[in-house]
């Protein structure tokens, strides 16, 4: 029923809220919204709202990267944002959400993790990015990814006491997290043969499949993920890569440049 309704609208190049297929709802990015966090952002896409906080700590590097800082992305899908979310261990959706956003940042080397080494094999900075949806009206992927990169852009390192070998969390330095790229994720839904961006919750209920594409400043692709039990053709994918670069350029303007 809902599906048929959306197909009819999309075939006329329309959406139920008056948007064009590849038009986003109003997007806003606010940074520095959490005093205790080392970096933070609130992203709103229409009625979808996501809060992202970055916390830094010092830990032992992984054996396969003894001189590399550590990035950890996590999403907490609390029933606060959507009554269908459940308390308890992370659901498949929250694991996918955080891992897809993680790879979007990691795979294009957005953060220069090699600059986050304090003492090789022993101490490196650990960057924890935690994504908390506050209200889910669809497209948490794009909102979370945009929030993550905005929060990271504004992240400053806390003081590290070399003698005591510990972090003084309350004292912030002026050193920013070394960021090299601004990857932006855009997610496309598909109903029937119709593709569109920025699904609302109602549209998400009707979509057969989605494709998330992460692009960097130069328009190259740094990550992709298909989700949902539907299908895309190779031509769909190429078309959406182009759209993603185009839409990504606009969204990137909302991320603080420094």
């Amino acid at each position, binding site marked *: 029923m809902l599906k048929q309704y959306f197909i009819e609208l999309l075939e006329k190049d329309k959406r139920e809220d008056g948007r064009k297929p590849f038009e986003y709802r109003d997007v806003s990015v606010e940074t520095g919204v959490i005093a205790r966090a080392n970096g933070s952002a609130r992203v709103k896409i229409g009625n979808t709202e996501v809060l992202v906080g970055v916390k830094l700590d010092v830990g032992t590097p992984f054996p*396969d*990267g*003894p*001189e590399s800082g550590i990035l950890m992305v996590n999403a907490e899908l609390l029933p606060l944002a959507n009554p269908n979310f459940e308390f308890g261990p*992370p659901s*498949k959706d929250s*694991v*996918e959400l*955080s*891992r897809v956003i993680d*790879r979007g940042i*990691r*795979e*294009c*080397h957005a953060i220069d993790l090699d600059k986050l080494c304090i003492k090789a094999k022993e101490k490196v900075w650990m960057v924890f990015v935690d994504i908390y949806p506050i209200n889910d009206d669809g497209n948490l992927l794009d909102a979370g990814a945009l929030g993550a990169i905005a929060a990271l852009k504004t992240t400053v390192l806390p003081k590290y006491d070399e003698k005591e070998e510990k972090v003084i969390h309350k004292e912030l330095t002026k050193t920013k997290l070394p960021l090299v790229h601004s990857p932006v994720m855009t997610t496309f839904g598909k109903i029937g043969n119709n593709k569109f961006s920025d699904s609302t919750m109602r549209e998400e209920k009707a979509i057969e*499949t989605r*494709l998330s594409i992460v692009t*960097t400043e130069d*328009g*190259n*692709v*740094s*990550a*992709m*993920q*298909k*989700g*949902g*039990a*539907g*299908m*895309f*053709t*190779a031509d*769909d*994918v*190429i078309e959406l*890569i*182009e759209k993603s*670069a185009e839409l990504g350029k606009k969204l990137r303007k909302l991320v603080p440049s420094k």
Partner: protein
Amino acid sequence: MGGVGGPEKLIVNGKRLDGRKLNEMREMEIKVGVIPNADGSAMVTLGETKVICAVYGPKEVLPRRNLDSEKAFLNCVYGMASFSTSERNRPGPSRRSTEISKVIADALAPAIFMEKYAGLEITVIMEIINANAGTRTAAINAASVALADAGIEMRDLVCSVASGKADGQLMLDLFEPEDNFGEVDMPLAILPNTKQITLLQMDGMLTKAEAKKLIEMSMKACEQIYELQKKALKEKYGSEKESE
């Protein structure tokens, strides 16, 4: 991608470290019906990567909260045996395996007449016995054949391969050093008869033209895999039909 301690070069004199050409797949072997208890089963060997898959069902949905009155509950569980990796892999679900299980279910569902099994569960268990990259795609190849072996009604099989880029070159079917130290990894699955993509993941860095070429390369390899899958099914069922 990336990491330390990798080989200096992944391509030497135009050949990969295991002697393959860029567009050459590792040898793949498919066996159908390897677990007598299961309704359907298969084992896929892809170079050193080995996966065993069992399908149980259609059966009652347990727990009941997973019941879907409109279509089957496709319960896919991907796991890695503790001894399958260089460093022991702690058994049980991880964040990685949870995500892979989900994308595999999304890759297989379009091939199954899900609405025919409304209110029922189809369980697909895939265990990696030995891992040398390409485990999720090998698991999909095994699962699709095991589903057919279980007599689940399907539109098509599902064929899958992971390609990527290493030393600046696009290449088919990455093995471990290329997966660990190369630049791009892109697992893909298609329904071979309609060429529809049912699994697509990518990480690394690709231009649009490279992405296009890599998809084409993978799709071609999927055609070869499809032939191997059909052959494996015929090995089990072909003779039965002739004797009828």
